[in-house]
């Protein structure tokens, strides 16, 4: 227990985070490149086509993983927001800002690939149903958090405002998650289920699971890269950062 507390205490130090993450970056870069090439080859070349949708369903191999990250990133960000508001840990604000950028990009990918997939399957690019609309709201919340974090001259004020918006925006997460169950929507239900057998043939499911694992590795890599850059930017007047430059 004591060592765990110490670990979190150390995590809060930008200097320590920067040094430890420099070992993790190559690990996660290799993992995500490897898994992603495997998943892409399996999904695009080897997975059989769908009996109804033909080949257009292959968009699932980026649509579902990016949607997963768009939501996971928000859980992490909301947690960091609470940590920042209670303990004022500087590192929490730094990672929170990274999460806002990455989350916004992932939500953008989910929305765009969904629109492209919608055209051949539904017959329309866009529909204002509960799932699609709540995802669009998520995108705007991410953008708002990012904008707020940059909106104040004093960085702590911006971080505080962004953290509060991140907490308020948490309400949207269960809405996205259950929108297709609560209301009549055009979007179909979940393909991957934790409790039941998934509704996808195993030959098509396997590349999807690989792509999800790959995207999670990419997500960790992006968090590390963005947080490291943000640490260097905000600590550039500190001696330990100056010492990094020869």
């Amino acid at each position, binding site marked *: 227990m004591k060592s765990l507390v110490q670990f979190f205490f150390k995590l809060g130090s930008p200097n320590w985070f920067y040094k430890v993450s420099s070992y993790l970056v190559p690990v996660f870069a290799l993992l995500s490149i490897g898994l992603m090439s495997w998943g892409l080859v399996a999904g695009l070349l080897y997975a*059989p086509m769908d009996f109804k949708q033909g080949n257009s369903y292959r968009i699932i191999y980026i649509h579902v993983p990016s949607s997963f990250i768009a939501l996971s990133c928000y859980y992490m960000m909301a947690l960091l927001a609470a940590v920042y508001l209670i303990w004022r840990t500087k590192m929490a604000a730094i990672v929170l800002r990274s999460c806002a950028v990455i989350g916004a990009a992932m939500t953008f990918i989910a929305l765009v690939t969904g629109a492209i997939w919608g055209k051949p399957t539904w*017959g329309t690019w866009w529909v204002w149903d509960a799932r699609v609309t709540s995802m669009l709201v998520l995108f705007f919340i991410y953008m708002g958090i990012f904008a707020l974090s940059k909106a104040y001259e004093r960085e702590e004020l911006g971080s505080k405002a962004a953290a509060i918006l991140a907490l308020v925006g948490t309400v949207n997460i269960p809405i996205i998650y259950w929108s297709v169950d609560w209301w009549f929507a055009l979007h179909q239900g979940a393909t991957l289920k934790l409790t039941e057998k998934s*509704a*996808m043939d195993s030959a098509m499911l396997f590349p999807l699971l690989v792509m999800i694992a790959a995207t999670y590795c990419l997500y960790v890599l992006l968090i590390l890269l963005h947080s490291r850059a943000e640490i260097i930017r905000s600590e550039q007047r500190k001696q330990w950062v100056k010492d990094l430059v020869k």
Partner: protein
Amino acid sequence: MAMHPKRKQRLWMVLAIVLSATAACGLLFYALSDNLNLFYPPSEIVQGKAPVGQRIRAGGMVKAGSVIRQADGLTVEFIVTDYEADVTVRYTGILPDLFAENDGVVVAGMLDEMGVMQADEVLAKHDENYMPPEVADSLKNPMKANKAAPPAVPAKTWQGK
């Protein structure tokens, strides 16, 4: 673990923000809940719950054997069902590729006095089941069924609630 009083106060603040935001949105969505449905199921339309003379959407399954194509080749008539009630739909235009009998569909248009939906838009509502064509064939044809375990048969996936 003992917490600094100031931090304890901030923790309460965090909880208050989350709870009040949840309560506000909960009430808002409760008040709006009917408007958040993309479409009406046929049984609600038959019961007169859908407005007449206003653009609405209806969603359900295309009833097997109900699709009639008119001589012009573009106008099509079919029945949308939720297995409780049926609504006849008339539509002129190009149908989406995935439009098929026994598959989900969402149509937009106006109800006329006869209770027929004069649609100007037809969207295919697909379900969450994915399988290769061979597996789908073997499901339709149990004689040819291979050893592969059949995936779940598409349920009434048009049902939102």
